């Protein structure tokens, strides 16, 4: 009897540690996700968040989400960086992170979205010279994301966003962009996240972009 109690206690205690551990992980991700919205105002905050996610990632080496979010924050930081000479380095960092996420969850639609964003980030440094190389890479990953998960609204959001900022003479402009953005919006309405720490961003921006186009 004594033995049984001790064993039960021990098991209970052990599971509580594991539970506490995963609870700690979920809470950490959540806490940082909650800080995302306000961080858009300040690029330095984005870098801080990227580092926070990377820290979680390096402690939880089997989880793709922290690497994914770290890469996401890095690439957003790259888009916001005004000094074009620094962007390549940031995009390189984001590439390293998304590669790690990719190795843990290959063929993931969300990861392809980040890859597409990173390619766009490289391209923005010098669109005239880099269009050929990175424009294709960005579109390729966007299309891969659509195939990997047809319910994922984010590749459509990225497509709409890209089209909006492409001149009309080159097949862009608000008209074509709105089509893609509308598709994205429909998909957002149907989209169910796997958990509350899985990717679920972009809807607000889509609404905003559609508004801008009206």
């Amino acid at each position, binding site marked *: 009897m004594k033995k049984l109690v001790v064993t039960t*206690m021990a098991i209970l205690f052990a599971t509580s540690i594991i539970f506490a551990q995963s609870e700690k992980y979920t809470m950490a991700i959540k806490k940082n996700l909650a800080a995302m919205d306000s961080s858009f105002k300040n690029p330095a905050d984005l870098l801080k968040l990227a*580092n926070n996610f990377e820290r979680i990632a390096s402690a939880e080496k089997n989880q793709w989400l922290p690497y994914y979010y770290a890469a996401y924050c890095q690439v957003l930081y790259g888009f916001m960086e005004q000094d074009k000479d620094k962007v390549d380095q940031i995009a390189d960092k984001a590439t390293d992170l998304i590669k790690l996420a990719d190795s843990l969850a290959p063929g993931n639609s969300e990861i392809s979205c980040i890859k597409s964003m990173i390619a766009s980030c490289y391209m923005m440094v010098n669109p*005239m010279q880099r269009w050929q190389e990175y424009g294709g890479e960005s579109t390729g990953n966007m299309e891969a994301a659509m195939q990997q998960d047809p319910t994922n609204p984010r590749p459509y959001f990225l497509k709409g966003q890209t089209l909006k900022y492409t001149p009309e003479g080159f097949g862009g402009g608000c008209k074509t962009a709105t089509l893609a953005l509308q598709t994205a919006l429909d998909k957002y309405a149907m989209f169910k996240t796997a958990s509350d720490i899985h990717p679920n961003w972009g809807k607000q921006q889509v609404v905003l972009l559609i508004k801008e186009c009206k």
Partner: protein
Amino acid sequence: MKKLVLIGLVCCYSTVTAQNKVSGRITGNKNKPVLGVSVQLKDTYDGATSDSLGNYSFTTEETGEQALEVSSAGYFVILQKIKLDKLPVIQNITLKEQITELKAVVISAGSFEASDKNKGAVLSSIDIVTTPSANGDITSAFKSLPGTQQVGESEGLFVRGGTATETKIYIDGNLVNNFFYSSTPGIATRGRFNPFLFKGTIFSTGGYSALYGQALSSVLILESTDLPEKTQADVSVSVVGIGGGIQHLAKNKKSSWGMSFNHTNLFLAFKVIKQKQDFYKLPTFNEIDANFRMKTKNGGFVKYYGYLSQNSTAFRTNDLDSIVLKNSFGIKNINIYQNLNWKDRIGKGWRINTGVSFSTNKDDIANELQDATNQKVIIGAPAFYTNKNFNLVNTGVFAQARVVLEKKLAGLNAIRFGSDYFFSKEKSTYTTYNGFQFSQEVKDNLFAGFAETDLYITNNVAAKIGGRLEHSAIINKWNVAPRVSLAYKLATNTQASFAYGIFYQNPERRYLPSVASLDYSKATHYIFQFSQQTKDHTFRTEIFYKKYNQLYKTSRNATNQDIIANNMGFGDAKGLEIFWRDKKTIKNVDYWISYSYLDTKRDFLNFPAAIQPSFATNHTAAFVFKRFVLPWKTGFNLSYNFATGRPYYHIAYDNTLGKYAITDQGKTINYNSMSFSINYLPNLGKKDKTTFAVLVLGVTNVLNQNQIFTYNYNSTGSRKEAVTPPGRQFVFIGCFLSFGVDRTQDAINNNL
């Protein structure tokens, strides 16, 4: 007992929650704070990011010996052991900067790079095609950069007081012996190769790397393109001919093959634009080329390029020695060039770059004196009339093998070494008016070994130090050529560079064989550069001094041929050059200006003393303007080239004195030339179109300015005639179509 266990467990669990504060300051170079550095307690979530003052701080529940991992892009990662107990820990960290391509200084003294990728490139690869004065010719585009002369009567790049033969041209590391079409008197020929074959070009106006040799002044290094983006076919129709080709990309995108055919015939162009010469055989060119490219497992490449050309022309000019007679010159040329290259990573940081090339060239030249009815005339005396009737057949066989090994070391440091072997066999057969034949053959085996190291001491200081060793069978001596380049970053985007080197070159084939015991001709370069480069502007200025020693002197032999007599020639060149390119100040406009000042004198060949050679002028300037109007899908390009007049001489052999003397001299008028071109891309932006068209209109010498390159003298020197371009202007109209791939992106890259 039960309770005890439980209490024990709870106690030990609660001790974990004790908090420790860790903080400190992170600095980099010169004790400056670094922002955005990630500080992490290894394998935990705990950590922070440094703020703009370099400060960080966080709390942790961990205890005992822990490692602090500090990382930031561009710096080496630092692991710092710390001990956590109840007291707050203060840990300052000094980061060490990584030497990265992005931050490091660029070794650039004496060299201009045209590339889409590399940092420090002055031109993009498309600039070569859209510079209107170049007319789609690779080397001509470089005449809009400082350091080159506006020589129009013969081909090649005349760099910093050097002759055209002092510039050597390499494709993928292999020397190209007949880069230009064979010379015709008074008319500059073009380069044989299509500019679209190359993705990158380095044009060195001096102080170049130990990997190259046998050029006293300059090297032009061309790097061929990798795999095409998609399978496609091209067709071109223009006033000078037609062409077509195909590039096939394998399904796995690992290899490609391609071939093309071009036929050039100047019938139409010469019909409309009157030529000074009477072309009784219009210039025609037939060319076939083929390529194969394969990506290797380790990201390297195997590339093959083969080229076959057959071309001919013949024209008459008024004979300078008489009033009624004409001089007729005809040439037939067959050229084959083949180049096989392998570039790869071979493990442990080693890279190999090896290649072989093989080429043959045959020129069949016929020269005749003709009367008013274009019939051949033979006049027995004086000899200068008699010698105008001749046949000359030149054949050349050239082969090269090359291997370069490179080891990448920490940072950007590298060492590379390798060797080159060149074989050449050139034979000329000269047939006089009465059928006598003289045949000469010159063979050479040239061996070269070289080694070079890239040293990056910090991101701000770099050096390239190398040396080259050569042995040529003709000279039968060894030469040792040291090369040094230094670069120092003065501020972000601003740097100073210096280059020094010794360069050796063999004599030109046409002055051989010589009976004298010869040495290599030699040049020593000193170059100092200051440059400032941002994304939108490039400013560069260079001053240089080049000393020539052991230049070849010629004398007349028994058969009235100029043959090398000794190595006692000498000379020097010094000057100042400025380059400014601006893509920002005027919206959508990209322009560059270059200016060169050159002061040079030399005593070589048949010069009686050290004089300013006829291929060098004191001031040269170029202006290039490019604008792409997006709504019109049209690019407008304009260029203006200017050069002050060049000296010209009549140097005659004085039989009584037994030496050469200047019997007449003068200076040409200034050279001015304005050219423009328009590129219209009708399918631009239509994303789904598989056909892409480019329509080109190019006009040279728009203002119809009088251009005199130099003067030709008759045999006695009593009469001279200006050497001018064959036609005052040239108008190029062409249409280039490609199927199967949308080249819009190309066009956007190229022209925006």
